[in-house]
């Protein structure tokens, strides 16, 4: 069964450093998403991406965040200058069509020191 994959599974970085989280969505999916889950809190929507552009973003997704689909398979989330409060589990998801089920990856646990 096809699945969403994410790398790395864990990332530790220093405050102020840039990080790139990588995702490989399910191959025939067209819609891509990032969510995050701060420890002990609920999963929160960050951004959705379709047709090579951001379609929706939350208030969390400020100028330090960016997303990109650099090739036909990868979907990345970049955090330009990490802050302590960026420490969280980041989930990538994809869906085949609008308003269809989103399938989630296993997540990348980011720790900012």
């Amino acid at each position, binding site marked *: 069964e096809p699945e969403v994959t994410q790398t790395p599974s864990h990332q530790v970085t220093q405050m102020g450093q840039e990080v790139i989280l990588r995702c490989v969505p399910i191959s025939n999916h067209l819609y891509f*998403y990032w969510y995050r889950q701060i420890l002990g809190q*609920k*999963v929160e929507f960050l951004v959705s991406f379709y047709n090579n552009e951001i379609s*929706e973003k939350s208030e969390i997704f400020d100028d330090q965040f960016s997303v990109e689909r650099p090739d036909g398979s990868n979907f990345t989330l970049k955090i330009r200058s990490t802050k302590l409060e960026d420490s969280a589990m980041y*989930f990538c998801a994809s869906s085949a069509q*609008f*308003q269809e089920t989103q399938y989630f*990856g296993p997540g990348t646990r980011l720790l900012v020191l």
Partner: protein
Amino acid sequence: AQSVTQPDIHITVSEGASLELRCNYSYGATPYLFWYVQSPGQGLQLLLKYFSGDTLVQGIKGFEAEFKRSQSSFNLRKPSVHWSDAAEYFCAVVGDSGGYQKVTFGTGTKLQVIP
């Protein structure tokens, strides 16, 4: 704006007992509803979903959920819980916003299964 409420933060059941996890949603139109499960250190796995049609939906691992529009609820049930069901369960709703979608999650219910 869409929202999801899971009133139970933590539930403990005995192995073999029945389970019901509560979920209430707020959404203006007919919602698309989901239950996801997250085992410790793992990602989110889809258990089941409701888009339309039969209000009782079957999912994986023996779970089912019933959509009740009059109560704005989508409770998750399992007749006999197994120790491996211990995990955190998230109810979620999808609504269209500007023509696209985002999933809004509840705060989760952590299930503990005791022998």
